[in-house]
């Protein structure tokens, strides 16, 4: 029996092997048993990549532990490989000395050839660094189900539950939750339900015979803040945060979107919630997606468009329109590897510059970024709040890693939190925004935050025209006057600056001064946080400032930066935030950069900080 603080397990097989489902069951069960967890699915970009090939491998990684878990884990301690391709694609990532459970039934000549193996890796020395468990997962599943009235193909398809059963035994997981899930899931097909349950039990029973050869893991319950929890992934959290924001503002939510990986799940999710008054419009392209949202915003909706990098590029001109028209709009960019089509299913943080600068003219948008899957709820709410309170487009950056990754989430009490957003809509009796002769002044600004009033069609006496041509302040009439353009450009910039008064101060993990300030942003929070915590435990003078508000940045950021000998900016790009900080604050920040389509490992960030500490 091996007692561990945390363990990482990766389920891996062919796209059709049901590995996402297996991984989800494992993580749900672990969460229910009181562990902290973080998960990440890893699937191929081809929908039906050739069966048995490395390109068709689908994986799901779960990190579970008795202490705080913030990432899906650096290296798997245990790999479940359902075929040779899965072994080939994942072996390198597995911790040396870790366990590899292989389905040897799939290691026939055909399977090995498809995976590109010239020799059977189970026979040579290739696996000598690992504790290999060779299991006849396919054939044993069929054997276990021989009494069932199903064809062999259907029986073999239950093998993922057999594999899950093995892991349940090794990790001391209770099967109860999964058994009742199967019952519900296959309610319409009782034979299949029973077969899957039988496969799960057969896998468990088989694993008991392994006791002598493999160590069993026990993981204590994690010390977690009390309350009711659920699992949530970033895209669902984003969708729900938007629905709640609309409710808190007393507006209807409108989504105009075009399908694009890895953002599409937000469209899927919102399309299921029409009874919340949500309208989703699947447009003909990215441009129509944002334009329909702009139209809905003009008409009085909380308007949203969702996309990924290439889509954000297409939306650029329309974002500029929303900026010059000073309209509330939320643009969610679930970042992926670029340029161009790039790596659609892989994560990256390389759209920061595009979000900040990717438009013609001087066109500042408010930019915020979510730090982890559950934070997408809060940041979607925040993006909406800032858009509505400041009458300005807000870009919310998430990424493929946190969008698809899941973690437990302390369910907020909506009667006390996330329950109020003030918007700028006016009613027909509002006199404040009219000239002496009763003409509506659409650009008459709020004294404090410089936002303009929002008069929506249907409001008597406030008929007005806005558009993409430069306008005169106060009246909103078209103006090409040189001085006016300077005034309006300055006003738009000042308006963004004043958002600073409406966002929280930058928080710090650790001491307020020291040797290294790790300054991270967006979805790399988990790795950076865990790395900094580990270094702090070693007594190193390292603190973390994780940015969620990017344009504008919190007003105390410069002061924080000044208290450290060096600023290290880890990011999944070639140094976009680093350059921005150096440009703003001349702080000599150095970068730790990676662009491999993969999130940071905790150990990578630890090493990067240590290198900086050594060179101080």
């Amino acid at each position, binding site marked *: 029996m091996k007692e561990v603080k945390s363990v990482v397990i990766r389920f891996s097989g062919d796209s059709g092997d049901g590995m996402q489902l297996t991984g989800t069951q494992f993580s749900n069960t672990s969460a229910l048993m009181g562990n902290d967890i973080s998960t990440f699915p890893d699937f191929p970009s081809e929908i039906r990549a050739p069966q048995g090939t490395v390109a068709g491998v689908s994986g799901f990684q779960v990190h579970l532990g008795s202490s705080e878990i913030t990432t899906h884990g650096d290296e798997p301690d245990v790999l479940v490989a359902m075929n040779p391709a899965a072994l080939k694609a994942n072996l390198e990532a597995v911790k040396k000395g870790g366990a590899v459970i292989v389905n040897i039934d799939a290691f026939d000549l055909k399977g090995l050839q498809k995976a590109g193996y010239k020799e059977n890796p189970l026979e040579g020395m290739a696996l000598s660094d690992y504790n290999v468990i060779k299991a006849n997962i396919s054939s044993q599943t069929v054997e276990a189900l021989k009494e069932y009235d199903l064809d062999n193909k259907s029986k073999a398809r239950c093998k993922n539950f057999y594999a899950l059963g093995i892991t349940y035994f090794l990790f001391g997981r209770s099967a109860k939750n999964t058994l009742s899930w199967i019952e519900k899931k296959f309610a319409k097909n009782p034979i299949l339900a029973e077969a899957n349950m039988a496969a799960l039990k057969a896998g468990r029973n088989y694993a008991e015979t392994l006791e002598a050869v493999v160590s069993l893991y026990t993981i204590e319950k994690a010390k977690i803040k009390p309350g009711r929890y659920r699992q949530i992934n970033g895209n669902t959290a984003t969708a729900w945060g938007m629905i709640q924001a609309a409710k808190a503002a007393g507006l209807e939510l409108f989504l105009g979107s075009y399908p694009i990986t890895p953002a599409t799940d937000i469209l899927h999710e919102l399309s299921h919630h029409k009874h919340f008054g949500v309208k989703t419009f699947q447009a003909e392209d990215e441009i129509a997606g944002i334009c*329909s949202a702009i139209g809905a915003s003009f008409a009085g909706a909380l308007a949203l468009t969702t996309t990924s990098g290439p889509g954000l590029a297409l939306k650029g001109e329309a974002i500029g329109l929303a900026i010059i028209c000073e309209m509330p709009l939320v643009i969610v960019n679930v970042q992926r590897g670029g340029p161009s089509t790039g790596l659609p299913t892989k994560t990256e943080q390389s759209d920061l510059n595009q979000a900040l600068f990717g438009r013609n003219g001087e066109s500042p948008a408010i930019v915020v970024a979510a730090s982890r899957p559950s934070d997408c709820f809060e940041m979607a709410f925040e993006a909406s709040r800032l858009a509505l309170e400041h009458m300005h487009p807000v870009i919310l950056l998430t990424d493929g890693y946190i969008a698809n990754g899941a973690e437990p989430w302390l369910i907020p009490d909506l009667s006390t939190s996330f329950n109020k957003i003030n918007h700028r809509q006016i009613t027909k009796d509002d006199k404040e925004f009219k000239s002496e002769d009763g003409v509506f002044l659409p650009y008459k600004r709020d004294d404090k935050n410089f936002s303009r009033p929002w008069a929506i069609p249907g409001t008597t006496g406030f008929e007005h025209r806005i558009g993409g041509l430069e306008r005169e302040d106060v009246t909103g009439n078209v103006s090409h006057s040189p001085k006016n353009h300077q005034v309006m450009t300055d006003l738009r910039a000042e308006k963004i600056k004043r958002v600073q008064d409406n966002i929280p101060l930058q928080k710090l993990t650790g001491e307020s001064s020291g040797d290294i300030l790790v300054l991270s942003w967006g979805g790399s929070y988990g790795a950076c946080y865990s790395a900094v915590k580990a270094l702090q435990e070693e007594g190193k003078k390292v603190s973390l400032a994780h940015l969620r508000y990017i344009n504008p940045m919190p007003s105390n950021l410069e002061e924080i930066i000044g208290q450290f000998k060096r600023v290290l900016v880890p990011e999944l790009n070639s140094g976009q935030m680093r350059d921005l900080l150096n440009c703003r604050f001349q702080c000599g920040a150095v970068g730790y950069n990676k662009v491999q389509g993969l999130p940071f490992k905790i150990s990578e960030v630890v090493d990067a900080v240590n290198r900086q500490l050594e060179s101080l």
Partner: protein
Amino acid sequence: MSEAVAYKKKDFVSSQEVRWCPGCGDYAILSSIQTAMTKIGKRREDIVCVSGIGCSSRFPYYVNSYGMHTIHGRAPGIASGVKIHNPDLSVWVLTGDGDGLSIGGNHLIHALRRNISMNIVLFNNEIYGLTKGQYSPTSKQGIITKSSPDGSVDRAFVPGSLALGAGATFFARTMDTDPKHIQDVMIEAHEHQGTSLVEVFQNCIIFNDGAHKIYTDRATRDDYSLKLVHGEPMIFGKDRNKGLILNHFHPVVVTIGENGVTEKNILVHDKHDYNLASMLTRLKAPEYPVPVGVFYQERAAVYCQQVCAQIKDLKAKRGEGDMQALLNSGDTWEVE
């Protein structure tokens, strides 16, 4: 909804000075639509004009209603969002042959097929005006322009054929030289349940003067245009003695009283006949009279109504959405 108000045309005139070239056909279209708006029974605050970029797209600035002058080609997208969010509004898209058929062609066809109940008015002058004279997707092949000094080799779109191909449920055509006809067509377009497309032959006096002359000029139009009226025979000509007949699906111009042709032989317009409408969109002068009026109208499900019905159904089935319940749904667990 607010109650109807008796309007005069000046109620729809904004304070902005109209800045089209003197003699531009746009003036007549603006004036006729403003007049039509007094007759459609909609209150001013419930009307929204949306445009893209181009000469025609200045239109919303001149109409005293809610309006938005947006970006090139994208007005149908923006108008879709306005209408879907608030289906009670009367939404008008003002576009041109460059804005609507070139850069915005994709949005136009999708707005038509979805049937999002809005009125799209296409000012067709067969030229790019605001960029000062380049050939457009409706310019005649061979046209000499600033960007086609040796003649354009582009083949032209026929907007009506395009619209019917895209599944439009209403297509009409009118001309800038006939304000009364514009008004009548606009009112019919407004009354149509679904998206309407109205093509207006419009003269660009600076860059493409006379492009539509033969069938729009008062002196010649009676002989070269055909006013379509549902249920009426397709008779035209100054002397009202010419008509269209079909010879094996092939339209033929005949003279009433010659070769035994009587009024009874003349084709009767049926705006619900898709094939007839398709044929009519292809007629070109001078071989044929150019038809104007309502070519086609189809009763079809309206997008916004269906969206609202789905919401209503779901609310009836599942009740008003409860966010706290959603957060608590599925697998949850208590940590003590």
